[in-house]
């Protein structure tokens, strides 16, 4: 039998040949972004229209395929048109009607439609060939060099997401062409488990799920355990609201995750892997199933993978909507078919995990980085980032920011560079108020912290945390007390109820916050929140409780004046908390049309037709209907 690497390279050559013949040598190749978010934006209809047009014109040399998400969420659906010797053009916010125009002009007549293309596309760059997409050794620079969208990709470094938006996630051949499974075969044939663990340790890769525990150390611990049975689990239970990094990774490049797991399994001695994924991600589940089936068929999973003597297989397990199951011991219980409640550690899962066997749990993004470490070397990986945080981090940048999207930056990039550089600043010219990182476990950082570098230690020191990668930009229109209440509402609801500090404590904190936002806050509430928060942090069983007070503590620390305005002046500075608002009619603007009076449900607005109206504050229920009804901006909310 020829050696496994030879066999893999042979498979790749075959894949490349057939891809070249079937897809890439076409005169025009069209890709449609089709992750969940793009489908939500209408990518399905766009894809169908392109398909129809190709058939209608009977074009044999035009090919069409789906790709994952390139991260330009606010411009979806994105359609990219590739043709040899001209710039790939990304068309944004496409609709079936726009497709008609682009198809007619660009595909048939060869003239790109600049008005519909992504802004700043460099149409003069004519030396593009498909090879550039595939040949680039590390692939990390190709987004800006190939797609030209330097405004968005320029400050980024696509490592985890290197293939997202480039390859067809449902076609394993395309993954093979971008050095797919080469790291796995290299590990299986040239390295001992110890070598792999050492490489990971040397690379400095740390857990991307939020904890930041060094991956190499974790693997080493599991490797040292003497057990016939061990397990490796991929945590894809991305529960943070406002986070979609893992979903996009799986939807855009599922084979990378599988390859990372194969390597991890070999390193620690696990022959069985599990992917624990949210049931709320049907498309990610489907793509992963397709990828696993393809890998199995090719002999990359199952008995004697890649023709070696190593057995490894992966099974998908569905979550069922419990945030706490992102915690590793709770996740294990859930895979076992139980209520997903955490247990005290130690013993750590690496010693006693799934069914009492040594188990390693890593996040999707961590696994996606593993092949890069192996292929490009731990030294190269360690050269990116800061002293203690190596590599890159993917963020789901959302909220009141111009460029919403999935971004990946080297560790150490400042928050300012992410929000203003990649994100393009605040929407509608509003004023920046805070950036929230780390989801319900993280905190809100104000403008004075914008120069904080993005790494595990700096974010924690600033009072927030890295978390799994949600990054929500908040502007002056949001009330920070209300934001804190929102997160507490979430964690309180998701608390599994096993330990008292979390179960009862978060409930009491939420009650206080509800009181404050309802205008019934009393002097001493802030101190009470801080004291409760401190107790919950120190005494809760798992990470959920230990981090639950963070949004409250960080908003008190940085926005104490807003809390005080609510409590002392019964005023919501941002104009959000409805109980604390007053609606008044501006006499100079009121023409006495009566529109507000007719809408008022109480009714508390008085005034004769054509005379200035007035709101009876004592009876007003602050529903805001008068404000919506008035066509003359005569109702003021304060």
């Amino acid at each position, binding site marked *: 039998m020829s050696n496994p690497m030879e066999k893999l390279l042979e498979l790749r050559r075959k894949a490349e040949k057939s891809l070249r013949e079937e897809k890439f040598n076409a005169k025009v190749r069209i890709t449609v972004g089709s992750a*969940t*978010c793009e*489908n*939500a*934006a209408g990518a399905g209809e766009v894809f169908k229209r392109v398909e129809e047009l190709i058939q209608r014109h009977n074009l044999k040399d035009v090919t069409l395929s789906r790709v994952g998400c390139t991260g330009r*969420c*606010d411009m*979806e659906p994105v359609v990219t048109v590739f043709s040899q010797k001209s710039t790939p053009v990304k068309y944004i916010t496409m609709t079936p009607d726009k497709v008609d125009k682009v198809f007619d002009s660009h595909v048939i007549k060869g003239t790109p439609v600049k008005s519909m293309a992504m802004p700043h596309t460099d149409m003069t760059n004519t030396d593009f060939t498909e090879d550039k997409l595939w040949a680039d050794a590390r692939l990390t620079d190709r987004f800006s060099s190939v797609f030209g969208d330097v405004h968005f990709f320029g400050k980024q470094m696509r490592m985890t997401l290197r293939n997202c938006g480039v390859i067809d996630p449902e076609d394993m051949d395309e993954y093979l062409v971008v050095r797919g499974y080469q790291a796995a075969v290299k590990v299986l044939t040239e390295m001992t488990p110890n070598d792999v663990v050492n490489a990971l340790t040397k690379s400095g890769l740390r857990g991307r799920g939020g904890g930041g525990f060094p991956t190499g150390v974790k693997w080493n611990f599991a490797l040292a355990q003497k057990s016939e049975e061990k397990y490796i689990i991929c945590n894809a239970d*991305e*529960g*943070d*609201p*406002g*986070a*979609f990094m893992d*979903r*996009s990774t799986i939807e855009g490049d599922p084979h990378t995750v599988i390859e990372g797991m194969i390597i991890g399994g070999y390193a620690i001695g696990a022959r069985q892997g599990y992917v624990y994924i949210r*049931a*709320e*991600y049907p498309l990610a589940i489907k793509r992963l199933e397709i990828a696993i089936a393809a890998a199995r068929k090719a002999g990359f999973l199952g008995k004697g993978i890649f023709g070696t003597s190593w057995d490894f297989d992966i099974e998908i*397990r*569905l*979550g*069922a*909507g*419990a*945030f706490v199951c992102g915690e590793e011991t709770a996740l294990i219980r*859930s*895979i*076992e*078919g*139980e*209520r*997903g*409640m955490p247990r005290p550690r130690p013993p750590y899962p690496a010693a006693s995990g799934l*069914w009492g066997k040594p188990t390693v749990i890593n996040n999707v993004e961590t696994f996606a980085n593993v092949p890069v470490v192996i292929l490009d070397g731990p030294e190269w990986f360690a050269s990116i980032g800061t002293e203690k945080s190596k590599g890159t981090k993917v963020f*789901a940048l*959302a*909220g*009141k920011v111009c460029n*919403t*999207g999935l971004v990946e930056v080297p560790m150490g990039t400042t928050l300012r560079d992410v929000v203003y550089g990649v994100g393009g600043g605040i929407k509608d010219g509003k004023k920046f108020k805070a950036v*929230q990182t780390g*989801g319900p476990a993280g905190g809100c950082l104000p403008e004075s912290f914008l120069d904080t570098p993005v790494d595990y230690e700096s974010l924690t020191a600033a009072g927030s945390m890295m978390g799994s990668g*949600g990054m*929500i930009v*908040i502007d002056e229109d*949001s009330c920070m007390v209300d*934001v804190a209440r*929102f*997160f507490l509402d*979430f964690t309180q609801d998701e608390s*599994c109820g096993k330990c008292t500090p979390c179960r009862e404590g978060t409930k009491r904190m939420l009650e206080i916050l509800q009181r404050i936002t309802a205008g019934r806050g009393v002097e001493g509430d802030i101190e009470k929140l801080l004291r409760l928060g401190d107790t919950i942090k120190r005494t809760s069983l798992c990470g959920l409780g230990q981090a639950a007070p963070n949004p409250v503590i960080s908003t008190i620390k940085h926005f104490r004046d807003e809390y005080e305005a609510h409590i002392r002046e019964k005023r919501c500075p941002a104009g959000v908390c409805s109980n604390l608002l007053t609606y008044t009619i501006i006499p100079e603007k009121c023409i006495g049309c009566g529109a507000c009076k007719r809408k008022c449900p109480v009714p508390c607005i008085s005034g004769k037709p054509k005379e200035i109206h007035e709101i009876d504050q004592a009876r007003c229920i602050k529903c805001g209907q008068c404000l*919506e009804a008035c066509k003359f901006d005569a109702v003021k909310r304060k």
Partner: protein
Amino acid sequence: MKSALLLKEVNKAKEVLPESVIRYIEDCASRKNPNSHLISVLHKVQDHFGYLAKEHMDAVSILMQIPSAKVTGVASFYHFFNFAPRGKHRVSLCMGTACFVKGAGKVLDKLKDHLGIDVGQTTEDRLFSIDVARCVGACALAPVMIVDEKVYAGVKPDQVAKILTEYGFEPRKAKK
């Protein structure tokens, strides 16, 4: 040894669940750690019926030989499972952070107001039910409202009624 009584129970349970689920349970029984598949079995039952009734869970309990208390305990732990029939059209509002920051709370208030029900409830005519999604991960489209499979992006409170009428909502009738 299976008693005649148990066999009777098993046959009764088989009448409750669809064939595909029964086959799946039997398939799981032949694998290692069969009980660990309880959650995926419950997923399949809910896929079929739209919710988990007591009789469905009891049938799962008999067929998987897991105590009924545990089946109920597991099912009730996870938000994904619901125990009452849902409306013909399921209106789901995303309450992720991005949607929240962009005003999803006001959209939800309007939705509750129009339909006269709270989150997790179904209207009397069984036409609509409201759910709150933690985050659907389409943050660029915030606030997001999903009716059945269709996604509505950038929803404003005053658009809610119009969207609902597409699904047979009559403003006067629904509000008591």
